[in-house]
């Protein structure tokens, strides 16, 4: 198997490279200190396996997986065991190695990679590592990653999502959550029949509107501006007498 190593830490790349060199069936083609360089490489090269660090500045391992189309098999390498649940949401991930990686555990991961047939998955160019929508048996839930914990939010209880720089604030009946993501990304995860973007910084739950006045909406205790371009769509959604 031809593989590449993506890790911002030179020490980690050296260790994984050494572990690979002990396995005859593995050939390391390249090593990258960040995901962006690897993406450029993958645009022109086909490989069988990626050793991917999760915790990298600017562009995490999960951002990387969401970005590439038809990802090959991936073995995640991390110092943090808390990402395991999120990791196995992806079909392309065949194993999850916690650093420091032992030769025995590495060998097992390679065996898994050699025997696992991954299902090709349709990928969009943009999605979010911080937000995963999960269809659970109890209805629509949204899982958000806050401080490395996946926290479940009941989608119908969300009444407002507000963009705040690199973060979004999700307001629900009981609690507010600040998540590292964008309005565009969460918009893709919310059901269209319930939620509407009424301003470049706000998405509202239409069911929770109390009243509308000219260019603003009262929702709970928040007065939210409605942009001129979004107002026609909002008016269409109302059951006007």
């Amino acid at each position, binding site marked *: 198997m031809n593989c590449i190593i993506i890790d911002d830490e030179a*020490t980690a790349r*050296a260790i994984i490279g050494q*572990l690979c060199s002990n396995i005859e069936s593995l050939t390391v083609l390249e090593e990258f200190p960040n995901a962006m360089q690897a993406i450029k490489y993958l645009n022109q090269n086909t490989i069988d396996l990626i050793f991917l660090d999760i*915790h990298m500045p600017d562009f995490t391992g999960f951002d990387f997986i969401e970005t590439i189309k038809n990802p090959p098999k991936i073995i995640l390498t991390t110092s943090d065991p808390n990402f395991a649940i999120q990791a196995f949401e992806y079909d392309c991930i065949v194993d999850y190695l916690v650093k420091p990686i032992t*030769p025995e555990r590495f060998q097992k991961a390679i065996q898994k990679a050699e025997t696992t047939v991954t299902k090709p998955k349709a990928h969009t160019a943009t999605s979010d590592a911080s937000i995963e929508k999960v269809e659970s048996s109890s209805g629509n839930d949204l899982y958000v990653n806050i401080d*490395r914990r996946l926290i479940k939010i009941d989608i119908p209880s969300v009444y407002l999502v507000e963009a705040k720089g690199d973060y979004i604030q999700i307001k629900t009946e009981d609690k507010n959550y600040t998540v590292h993501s964008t309005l565009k990304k969460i918009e893709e995860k919310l059901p269209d029949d319930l939620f509407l973007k009424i301003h470049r910084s706000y998405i509202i739950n239409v069911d929770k509107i109390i009243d509308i006045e000219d260019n603003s909406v009262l929702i709970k205790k928040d007065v939210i501006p409605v942009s001129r371009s979004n107002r026609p769509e909002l008016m269409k959604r109302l059951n006007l007498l």
Partner: protein
Amino acid sequence: MEQPNLSYINSMSGGDKAFEQKLISIIKGEFPEEKRVYYTNLKAKNYKLTADNVHKLKHKISILGLEKSYEIAVAFENNLLEGNTELQDQFESILKTITRYLQEL
């Protein structure tokens, strides 16, 4: 206090002395820079970035066989994400121990 050792490096090198030296050299090059960035971010009270630095440093702590220190680093990283610097002194003592050890290698 527990002392750094080369047990992990020896166990995964498969007796390849050239690799052991190469890895030690990489750690010697990378560790001071990671430590410098850690102190800079901590001084600026940028605890999220400081937690990222601790995250990276804790890999080296584990590579050097410091099991108890690793647990302190994990707890300190989590504390920093909540804006808490309670374990700072203990963590920095670990950094000093590693610094001395690497200088002697």
